[in-house]
């Protein structure tokens, strides 16, 4: 029985490897060195699926109602079998391609390049290459299996060391720049000729992260216990929180100087999306209204700022001035933009008040799409320039100091994000937040307990819209010109993705989500064309492995694990019935 399970997991891994090869994630990255000359991204991809298969087959399972960890021998056998199965499937793929000729496969799968074939056969004959793949995969699977059953004291540091080192390897374009900015020597860490980490650098990083991991698992819970803040409502602020907050703030303020212009630019995008995320989090996370048309507020904020601050049309042949151009100062315009967005939120919310779940999502999706069509339509050319958009948007300057440059923009965005987080936090911790939570958990009961559902739904749309429009306003300042191409449905999906990834209803989660989904792709420019693939994979992985998100809101997390909670509650409910005796 077990063997069949191992082989099935492994075969799936093999299919994943074939997929990675077909989309080009192996063949196009044979030159991307992560550590030294040996560890390249392509090689990593080749063994990653068997490794994961090994991890999975050695994971604890529920058998006959009890959770049972795999023994070492099971893990070794299972990992090796699963890895070998993965290798076999991939090897079959190689042999098949070789048999019918790779140039014929290439007609459909463009990424099956001679380079790829050369790489996966280790420049040998196809049969020899397949055998090497089989052996390598079996070894990787075995390693995964052993790692999974190793005691936590070993497993955690090893995992930390491996993942942090690889992350540093990936960030080879970013971290050296930061080192240069601060004026640190970096040749020991990153090889100037090969690009990736040097072996010495890799060892230092691995040792450091393993060390941190060990300290964390030994003393972490004690430290956390001391520093733990109350998640939602905290009447008093502790001094430790204050010190920690000040340190974080100091780091945030120093960041652009430390990291340089390229990373600051990426951070600027992260902040714009974080603002959108904070806004959508109010609608989706707090009030539980699934809104797939959030790009609406993004576009509204951007175009409203452009119109209010006196941007000009980008169109030829007609007057360069838009129909309305008030020429307001950016900071005077912002309150009007937010007000406008809040009103728009109410207008969008009103017709969908009676809808829930899927239906609400569908209708909002349509509303969002309307915006894209509208701003690009010939009908609105005199107002917003139609397909060619607008330009000459204010740089939000104060006393001649503009905010268009990445490093300056960062500060403007930071200020807005901090403000939005503060507002969002205060709302969540108030009577209003309580009403939203109650409404999310049980709308009808909330109504019967005195909460005006209509009002609080509209309030959520209005507040979410107002915060989201800030994101749009900042985006306009950052780019300086607008075209409808920036306001596609994809924005809605991305923002929802980062809210879900971070953890619905969690403010730190929004920031982490934005960093992961916007920041990482921004830093890893090599993977630009795989960005959406990574998005999808990340969201699916989070939904399967950690549905509450990376930094969950305690309550939302419980809602998503309702089933377990109910079972738990049922068990508890049985107790008093058992102990109770008739009086």
């Amino acid at each position, binding site marked *: 029985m077990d063997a069949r399970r191992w082989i099935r997991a492994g075969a799936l891994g093999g299919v994943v490897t074939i997929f990675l090869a077909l989309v080009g994630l192996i063949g196009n990255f044979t030159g991307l060195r992560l550590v030294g000359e040996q560890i390249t991204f392509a090689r990593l991809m080749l063994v990653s699926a068997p490794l994961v298969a090994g991890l999975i087959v050695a994971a604890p399972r529920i058998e006959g109602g009890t959770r049972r960890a795999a023994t070492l021998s099971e893990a070794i056998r299972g990992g090796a079998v699963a890895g070998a199965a993965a290798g076999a499937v991939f090897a079959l793929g190689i042999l098949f391609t070789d048999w019918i000729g790779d140039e014929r496969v290439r007609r459909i799968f463009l990424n099956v390049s001679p380079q790829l074939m050369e790489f996966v056969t280790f420049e040998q004959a196809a049969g020899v290459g397949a055998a090497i793949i089989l052996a390598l995969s079996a070894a990787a699977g075995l390693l995964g299996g052993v790692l999974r059953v190793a005691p936590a004291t070993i497993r955690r540091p090893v995992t930390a060391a491996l993942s942090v080192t690889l992350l540093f390897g990936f960030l080879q374009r970013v971290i050296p720049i930061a080192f240069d900015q601060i004026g640190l020597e970096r040749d020991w860490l990153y090889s100037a000729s090969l690009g990736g980490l040097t072996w010495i650098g890799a060892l230092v990083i691995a040792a450091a992260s393993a060390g941190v991991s060990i300290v964390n698992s030994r003393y972490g819970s004690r430290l956390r216990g001391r520093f733990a803040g109350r998640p939602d409502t905290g009447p008093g602020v502790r001094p430790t929180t204050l010190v920690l907050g000040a340190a974080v703030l100091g780091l945030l303020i120093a960041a652009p100087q430390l990291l340089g212009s390229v990373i600051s630019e990426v951070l600027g995008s992260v902040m714009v999306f974080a603002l959108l995320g904070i806004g959508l989090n109010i609608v989706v996370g707090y009030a539980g209204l699934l809104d797939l048309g959030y790009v609406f507020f993004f576009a509204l904020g951007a175009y409203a700022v452009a119109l209010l601050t006196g941007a000009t049309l980008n169109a030829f042949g007609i007057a360069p001035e838009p129909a309305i151009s008030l020429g307001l100062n950016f900071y005077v315009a912002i309150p009007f933009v937010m007000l406008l967005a809040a009103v728009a939120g109410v207008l969008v919310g009103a017709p969908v008040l009676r809808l829930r779940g899927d239906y609400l999502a569908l209708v909002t999706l349509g509303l969002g799409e309307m915006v894209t069509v509208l701003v690009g339509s010939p009908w609105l050319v005199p107002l917003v320039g139609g397909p060619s958009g607008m330009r000459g948007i204010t740089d939000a300057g104060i006393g001649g100091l503009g905010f268009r440059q990445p490093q300056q923009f960062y500060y403007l965005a930071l200020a807005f994000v901090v403000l939005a987080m503060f*507002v969002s936090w*205060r709302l969540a911790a108030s009577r209003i937040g309580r009403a939203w939570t*109650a409404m999310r958990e049980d709308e009808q009961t909330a*109504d*019967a307990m005195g909460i005006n559902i209509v009002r609080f739904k509209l*309030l959520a749309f209005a507040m979410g819209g107002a915060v989201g429009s800030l994101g749009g306003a900042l985006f306009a300042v950052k780019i300086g010109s607008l075209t409808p191409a920036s306001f596609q449905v994809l924005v809605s999906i991305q923002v929802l993705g980062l809210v879900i990834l971070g953890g619905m209803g969690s403010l730190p989660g929004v920031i982490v989500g934005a960093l992961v989904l916007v920041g990482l792709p921004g830093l890893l420019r090599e993977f630009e064309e795989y960005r959406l693939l990574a998005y999808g994979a990340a969201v699916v992985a989070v939904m399967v492995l950690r549905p509450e998100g990376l930094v969950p809101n305690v309550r939302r997390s*419980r809602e998503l694990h309702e089933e377990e909670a109910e079972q738990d*509650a049922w068990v508890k409910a049985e107790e*008093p019935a058992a102990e*109770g005796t008739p009086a």
Partner: protein
Amino acid sequence: MGEGRGARGRRDAGMSKATAGTEAPVLEVRDLQKHFGGLYALSGLDLHVNEGEIVSVIGPNGAGKSTLFNVVTGIYEPDEGGIRYRGQSLVGLRPHQIVRLGLARTFQSVRLFPNMTVLENAMVGQHCRSKTGVFGAIVRTPGVRQEEERIRERASAALSFFGKRLSGYREEQPAFALSYANRRRLEMARAMATDPQLILLDEPTAGMNPRETLELRDNIVRMRDELGLTVIVIEHDMRVVKGVSDRVIACDYGRKIAEGTYEEVANDEQVIEAYLGRGHGAKDD
């Protein structure tokens, strides 16, 4: 006034002591009708409840008792008939508006906010008695802080109605972690936290063991004696009905079939028939 219109004439002689008052009733329901498709859940129900009374509504399953609650609290709109609370019509008001007027309820199937803490559940009850808006919530003015403090105290006080069962460390527990009986208690505490004058309890002892049931019987009486609430309770446990009721109203097929003291109603032929079917002798509890 409205008493006894739907009931048979001979029961008018046996009015209970509590209905004899001269004050206008707190709640008055006249000729209430509600159908779902062809099903007549309520067909011409009349009843009234006086200040400080505990009235039990009994009847077999499907008699329309819960529908009555749902219509009175605004969850359903009646097809016909009138509902007046202290002279004001409730027909057409939304549930949250009715709570504001001073009517609170519990549900037959416990409906808490399971992932909010016990205290937060009760604090939701105070929602309709507070008014902090967006601006206040963001700026947190002294007035808002005071209000929040007051909400917290009021909710805590409502929880302490059940002694230590919902107080202390339990306040910070999520509602789903409570035992079944405690969930029912929390639902009542949440209703009491809305500062009601009239409370409607829908089968408060369902699923409780005998000891808990007896305790709850005392609690219902305390609601009136200590908090001055008027109580309407739907109940199947006849010991509770007997123990708490100033007046009992029996319903069947969406109409009132009997009304009076517990003894009067319990010995009413129509009531016995409704519970046991035709052809059974008098039932002794």
